[in-house]
């Protein structure tokens, strides 16, 4: 592992080590570029993960104070915990389910396809599916996604049997155990899924892709990575030319440090990324870094969920095996006849000590007013204002959720459920869009490469880039964008453009 001096201004500094930051770090290191990764959380390992939902939550989750506002139910039920994301090396790739789906072609053109939707702030992505396809292919290969690259699907568990039986009775066509970044057979030095049933608690068998034990050790092996866990960044600094010059952070001993940088890439998830840009406001950038559009923190999107649990006469043993064990894709397409635009994926899920749950994962997008702001009334332990997460459900979300609830119930009833339960939304793991990429600098924070419109050596490298959400789980797209961004950064550095 490299040791890069604080005053060395030749390295790329990446804030965050999850799907975006961890992947970008490895891709850059493989190209011979020196990288410092500052990760707020501590380093765990498959050995230190625990098969205990609440202990694991304490070990991995981001629990720094946050506030909430808006009409969404989460603001009432989980007012201090708007999101279930992680503060640990590997970020939320330690916790994610592994579902790896490409966005659909029309989802890159939401404004064109869906038209003007009142109360939403739709925009087409500055890139198309065909531009991203080669990177999707690289990401699927890197992550070992089942049903790609000749990798077999996972064996279905008992939850999947229930889903499959109900879905087929309903007439659904595309039903299988998913495209999962979980080894169905040994691959890339990692073993196969042991059907532990604790995917969300960190995969103890290492079968599920996480940057913690794939990208990061590979980057360390190049000798180009300086990974600093328990380093909480509070500010990005710039010079008098308006270029970013370094970052200030608190290290594991609580000591304030300054790391110089040639390029800064922010990958702190869609709440912390805009927060950090806003916290870095200066005389030159009074509204926060890269915020001439006023869009930093706006268009916050979450995957709205409509979960249905069901009880059956005979036992299911829902806790056995892969947590997210199956998918129905038939509702993911855009079909306005259903009363809403966009679509949703239906995915089985086993959560906690409960009955048989379904997790429906609908597409959503941001109204401009759904946003991350700084709450100056509440400070964290480093003295920085905490982020406030404001979200109002849009009419389209509500109609889609009710549709999803109904379809979820029908599936379980078709499989013989004696009772079904609708579950209100819980804290979101999919947080998107708060520094969106746009063709025009007026409409978003960064260009098609995630390079901020205002500051050429400042990049957005996580799900904050999403111009609009899709029905699909976002991680595969985040990883694909990171691989693509690494190529661009390397080229720009070679050309001395940054």
């Amino acid at each position: 592992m490299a040791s890069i001096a604080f005053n060395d201004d030749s390295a790329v500094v990446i804030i965050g080590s999850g799907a975006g930051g961890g992947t970008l770090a490895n891709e850059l290191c493989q190209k011979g570029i020196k990288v410092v990764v500052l990760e707020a959380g501590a380093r765990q390992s498959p050995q230190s993960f625990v098969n205990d939902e609440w202990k694991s939550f304490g070990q991995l989750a981001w629990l720094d104070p946050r506030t909430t506002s808006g009409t969404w139910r989460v603001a009432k039920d989980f007012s201090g915990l708007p999101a279930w994301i992680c503060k640990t090396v590997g970020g939320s790739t330690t916790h994610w389910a592994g579902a790896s789906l490409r966005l659909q072609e029309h989802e890159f053109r939401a404004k064109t396809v869906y038209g003007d939707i009142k109360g939403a702030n739709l925009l087409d992505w500055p890139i198309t599916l065909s531009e991203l396809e080669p990177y999707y292919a690289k990401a699927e290969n890197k992550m070992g996604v089942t049903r790609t690259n000749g990798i077999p699907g996972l064996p279905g568990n008992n939850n999947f049997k229930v889903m499959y039986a109900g879905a087929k009775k309903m007439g659904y066509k595309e039903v299988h155990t998913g495209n999962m970044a979980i080894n169905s057979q040994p691959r890339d030095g990692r073993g196969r899924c042991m059907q532990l049933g604790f995917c969300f608690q960190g995969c103890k068998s290492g079968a599920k892709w996480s940057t913690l034990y794939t990208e990061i050790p590979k980057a360390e092996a190049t000798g180009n990575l300086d990974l600093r866990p328990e380093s909480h960044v509070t500010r990005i600094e710039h010079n008098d030319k308006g270029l970013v010059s370094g970052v200030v952070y608190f290290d594991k001993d609580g000591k304030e440090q300054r790391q110089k940088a040639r390029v800064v890439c922010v990958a702190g998830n869609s709440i912390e990324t805009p927060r950090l840009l806003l916290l870095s406001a200066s005389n030159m950038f009074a509204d926060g870094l890269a915020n001439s559009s006023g869009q930093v923190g706006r268009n916050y999107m979450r995957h709205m969920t409509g979960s249905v649990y069901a009880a059956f006469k005979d036992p299911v043993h829902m806790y056995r095996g892969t947590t997210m064990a199956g998918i129905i894709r038939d509702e993911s397409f855009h079909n306005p006849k259903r009363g809403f635009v966009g679509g949703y994926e239906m995915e089985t899920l086993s959560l906690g000590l409960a009955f048989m749950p379904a997790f429906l994962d609908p597409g959503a997008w941001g109204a401009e007013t759904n946003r991350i702001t700084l709450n100056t009334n509440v400070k964290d332990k480093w003295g920085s204002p905490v982020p406030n997460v404001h979200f109002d459900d849009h009419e389209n979300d509500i109609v889609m959720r009710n549709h999803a609830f109904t379809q979820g119930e029908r599936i379980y009833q078709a499989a013989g459920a004696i009772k079904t339960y609708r579950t209100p939304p819980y804290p979101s793991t999919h947080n998107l869009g708060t520094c969106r990429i746009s063709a025009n600098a007026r409409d978003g924070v960064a260009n098609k490469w995630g390079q901020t419109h205002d500051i050429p050596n400042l990049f957005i490298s996580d799900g904050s880039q999403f111009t609009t959400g899709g029905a699909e789980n976002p991680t595969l797209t985040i990883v694909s964008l990171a691989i693509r961004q690494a190529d661009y950064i390397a080229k720009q550095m070679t050309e001395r453009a940054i």
Partner: protein
Amino acid sequence: MRTIPIAPVASAFSDCEESGIVPKQNLPLARREFLKGSGILMGTLAAGSVLAGLAPSTVWAVELKTLSQAEGETLMAMARTIYPHKKLPDAVYAILAKDLDGAASGSADTANMLREGVSNLNSMAGGNFKKASDAKKLAIVKGLEGSTFFGAVRGQCVTSVYNNDMAFAVFGFPGSAWEKGGYITRGFQDLKWLPAPPKSASPSAYMG
């Protein structure tokens, strides 16, 4: 205080074949004569219940450090109103009282908030919340939804009531799977009352 761990035994699980020891041991069962606190909660596990078969003794006791016995019992009654499970013995709800007592011991504000909440419950019940009918208890607790006190008790219930060995045993959840090799050879696809999906949807497991 002496802690007697509860270790599940295989025969207790009527519909699960797991037989490993559940590692969490978070129920302090203490001998009566050693208890010296602000309050003591005690009870017995029903003979013949799943838990009676697991515990070394059917008598349980929990020591409180800040709250009184009456306050602890009122919080237990409130927890049973919010999350009513006939199958769960009082010993499980006592964990809630113990955990709230722990929070009260760590913060005078929390202690006051809990005491005021309990006193409020009792006054709304016309003196003694514990002795009110189930319907009356529910109406009182419903009226408190949204309050800090309700939020604190309900929030603590999520972990205290459901995340312990006794609740796991009662509901048939075996907990940690790693040390038993997961479910790859232990029934992750043993459901027989529905047809098996085709291999195209659910390929065979890789077994080396």
